[in-house]
């Protein structure tokens, strides 16, 4: 339904717009620093050598920072994007069911011809659009500033990294949507989702120090969100991306099924 989707876009435009600007600016700033790092590779590596290797690997600082794959995977893939994706996904995914129910908006729209499935389906479409915009803004900021500072990056590889980042983001959004339908409580759903993201991040970090937990750590989406091979070698991790898509599809599908049959009482 066009009206519903139009309203969905309108409702999220402020959050997505400002987050995209912040993400683009941050990505641009990081790209702006890159030539300095590249041109002072020896000094930087000497400095990095002061830190314990395990600690560096926890933060994804493996390999030389002059290598664009390592550099951007650490500053953008390992820091900026998980925060941006989690903030946007949690804010967007807890709104259409839990927050709108608490606010009284849900009854208003669901008393019309708009069915529950179409309402939530529209919101999910909005989440897809939001994640795509954010990923594009982040990659766009890097590519534009890279050109400006005389470090043209491989646009194709960075776009592939953006697609993989999109997969990571929609996974968080889909699981949070399911939590929102399960709890019908924005605070609880957001709290659980944020806790899960943090827990998964810590699990991934811990697995780099304690290699024995590698099996369990495979559950963490951070393990499957590696952009370095994409940027450095142009190899797209299709299995990891498909895993994100499958998890997201299952979570959204479960949310839609559950929402159809759920009592709507705040």
């Amino acid at each position, binding site marked *: 339904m066009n009206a*519903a989707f139009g309203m969905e876009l309108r409702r999220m435009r402020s959050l997505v717009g400002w987050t995209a600007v912040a993400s683009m600016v941050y990505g641009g700033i990081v790209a702006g620093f890159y030539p300095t790092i590249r041109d002072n590779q020896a000094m930087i590596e000497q400095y990095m050598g002061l830190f314990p290797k395990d600690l560096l690997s926890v933060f994804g600082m493996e390999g030389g920072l002059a290598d664009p794959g390592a550099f951007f995977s650490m500053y953008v893939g390992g820091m900026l994007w998980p925060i941006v994706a989690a903030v946007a996904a949690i804010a967007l995914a807890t709104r259409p069911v839990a927050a709108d129910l608490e606010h009284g908006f849900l009854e208003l729209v669901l008393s019309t011809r708009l069915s529950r499935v179409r309402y939530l389906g529209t919101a999910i479409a909005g989440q897809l659009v939001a994640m795509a915009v954010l990923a594009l803004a982040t990659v766009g900021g890097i590519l534009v500033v890279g050109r400006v500072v005389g470090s043209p990056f491989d646009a194709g590889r960075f776009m592939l990294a953006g697609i993989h980042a999109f997969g990571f983001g929609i996974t968080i959004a889909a699981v949070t949507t399911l939590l929102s339908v399960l709890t019908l409580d924005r605070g609880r759903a957001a709290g659980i989702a944020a806790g899960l993201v943090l827990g998964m991040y810590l699990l991934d970090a811990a697995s780099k120090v304690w290699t024995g937990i590698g099996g369990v750590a495979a559950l963490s989406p951070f393990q499957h969100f590696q952009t370095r091979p994409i940027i450095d070698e142009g190899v797209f991790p299709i299995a990891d991306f498909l895993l994100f898509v499958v998890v997201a599809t299952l979570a959204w599908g479960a949310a839609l099924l559950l929402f159809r049959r759920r009592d709507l009482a705040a």
Partner: protein
Amino acid sequence: MNEVIEAVGLTKRYGTRRGIEDVDFAVREGEAFGFLGPNGAGKTTAIRLLLGFLRPSGGRATVFGQDAWTEAATIHERVAYLGSDPGYLGGLTAAEQLDYLGALRGLPKRSWQAVAERLELDTTVRIRKLSRGNRQKIGVVAAFMGNEPLLILDEPTTGLDPLMQREFLALVSEIKSAGRTIFLSSHNLPEVERACDRVAIIREGRLTEVRAVAELLGDHWRSVNLLLAAPAPVGHFSLSNVEVLAQTGREVHLMVLGDVGPLLDRIAALHVADISITTPDIEDLFLREYRAPAAVVGPEPPEPAGTEARP
């Protein structure tokens, strides 16, 4: 006459918490049906069941002959709904909000214009800047802007000033004239009295009475208000056809059913400063209902008039 809404043994429990219990009623096509009860009695729960927002714990509700839970989306095509606390989007103007709701209901743009003008709603101001009353007007406009055959209104006049309440009643009257059906939930008794043909009274989740408003008002009940020179002795008005609704010091509010002679004899024994005997309004009847122990509407006829006295 077709039944637009039918509830049979309709029950909703929230875990151990009561919602509504074994509620039976039917709303006929073209009538205005009032659903009366204080806050927490179960009115909104009943409406949410009718709209398919909640799944019944027992019994069933049908709207236009279709199951309210399983066929909710189909039913909504023929229903206009005003909730008790609608969450409009504060960043929109009333016009934008109404156009959006209209689009979801398949109405053309600006369908709301005529009703908004009648209710003097400024549709250009952002909703977050509107007063409570003006926000309520948005809901009333939204409910009346389409041509759906059934309107379900939950506390529709909350926050409206008396002039707008009058306009609301005029809108209800027009809807009834057009043969459309109204289900009006309220605790505003005069509003129900003026707007509705029949009324159901819900108390602690159970229906206690479903009757025509005219019948409720037109029985042989009389409302008697006394101002006495001195408080009356306890039990002074204990008669089989008299109910004491309130007795506070020198003021007494009674209801009498049928023959008023015995009551007048009792009153004559007192020093009366002032007296009024009127046909009771629905508020009196409601008050009387709430003073009585909870009783459930059933197939048995009510007690014959004047056979039981209540203190």
